[in-house]
């Protein structure tokens, strides 16, 4: 099982029946595969759809039916479409139970950077700033370190921010971290790792929860 899959399976445990959830492009989208059986979770796509279904069969893609990653998707019964102004009214108005996004950096204050690297080309923030400002719970899902081995969980983000004080939880292949007023609280570590080993790969200071335990996940 890849690290990304472990992250997706762990976040799936946070889903609850009746939740409305927006998933960012990439890793977060993998969560759809791990919704527990019998649980009703409705996925929103910020380009204007509630009730997003899985990718269509080969050759069955409808160009008028895409997700926010511009990939073809399908309809689930009871889905609905709306304009961008309504979609973001929904997001900004606090109607999404959960938003899961990727990140480049997160820091001890719950600040998030996930949209640009100065000097490189600016692609744009898309809906990320709206999602972190509006969702009831913002979970960052990302690999713990960069490909070069640098920590992505920092004392203070160095990249331009997507939002300040917006992240509630950080999930990586190594651990679960809850963002609190006191700082980053390490609540779960991946099987076979110690809190000290996680801290060693993390620039930010981690407060080890007295109840720290092994990361669980859906279907594992």
């Amino acid at each position: 099982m890849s690290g990304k899959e472990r992250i997706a399976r762990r976040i799936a445990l946070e889903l609850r029946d009746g939740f409305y959830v927006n998933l960012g492009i990439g890793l977060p989208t993998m969560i759809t595969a791990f919704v527990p059986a019998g649980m009703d979770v409705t996925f929103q796509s910020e380009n204007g759809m509630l009730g997003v279904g899985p990718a269509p069969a080969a050759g069955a893609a409808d160009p008028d039916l895409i997700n926010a990653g511009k990939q073809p998707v399908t309809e689930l019964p009871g889905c609905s479409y709306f304009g961008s102004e309504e979609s973001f009214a929904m997001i900004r108005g606090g109607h999404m139970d959960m938003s899961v996004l990727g990140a480049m950096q997160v820091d001890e204050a719950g600040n998030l950077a996930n949209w640009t690297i100065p000097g490189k080309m600016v692609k744009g923030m898309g809906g990320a700033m709206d999602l972190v400002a509006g969702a009831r719970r913002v979970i960052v899902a990302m690999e713990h370190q960069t490909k070069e081995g640098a920590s992505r969980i920092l004392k203070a983000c160095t990249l331009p921010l997507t939002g300040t004080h917006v992240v509630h939880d950080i999930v990586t292949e190594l651990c679960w971290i809850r963002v609190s007023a006191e700082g980053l609280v390490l609540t779960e570590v991946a099987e076979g790792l110690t809190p000290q080993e996680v801290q060693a790969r993390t620039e930010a200071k981690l407060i080890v929860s007295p109840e720290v335990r092994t990361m669980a996940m859906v279907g594992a």
Partner: protein
Amino acid sequence: MNKVVLSADAAVADIASGATVMLGGFGLCGIPETLIAALVRLGVQGLHTISNNMGVDGFGMGLMLEAGMIASHVGSYVGENRRLETMVLQGQLDLTLIPQGTLAERIRAGGAGIPAFYVPTGLGTVVAEGKETRQIGERMYVLEHALHADVALVKAWKGDRLGNLVYRKTARNFNPAMATAADLTIAEVEELVEPGELDPDQIVTPGIYVDRVVVGAAYRKPIEAEFIRSGGAA
């Protein structure tokens, strides 16, 4: 009342160089393909465009970029345009990136007579730089202003000669909001129907917002991910 214009070229003929133009669509989905093609043929220059994305190299607004028609652009994501990257780095195009929801709401406000409003989005980021912030209740907010355009080019599924429009699936996106926010709104539709054929309860854009209706033809509707993967040769 008949707002139908027989050709896209006639519909865009009075758009002037230097105009501010909103274009509907998200990625390549629900974009006014026919009107973009006509605008490129018209050959105006120095346009100020407002659109969530900017097409891709070889399709959608990418064709306008290649024609050198665009002086500035306001959008939220322009990730797939190599030509745009070059132009911005060389100072040939002034690019302003803003959050997608703020973009949508600023456009709605432009159509709704609301000159400015507060949002939590972007607080503490570059997006809020130079903007008024203020505490309302327990939270801080950023003041954002309405966007309005000289021309909006939108794409609908079906429409009638009164300008009533309905959209199909996620091809709706920015089109209805933009239709309200310009001095001149031109809609292209896949199918023209008789007034009364669209259920009045289901009309998304009432005709009051639309000045001209053009029937589009030969839609390509590429799917962006696949289009890019195939090098634009779809």
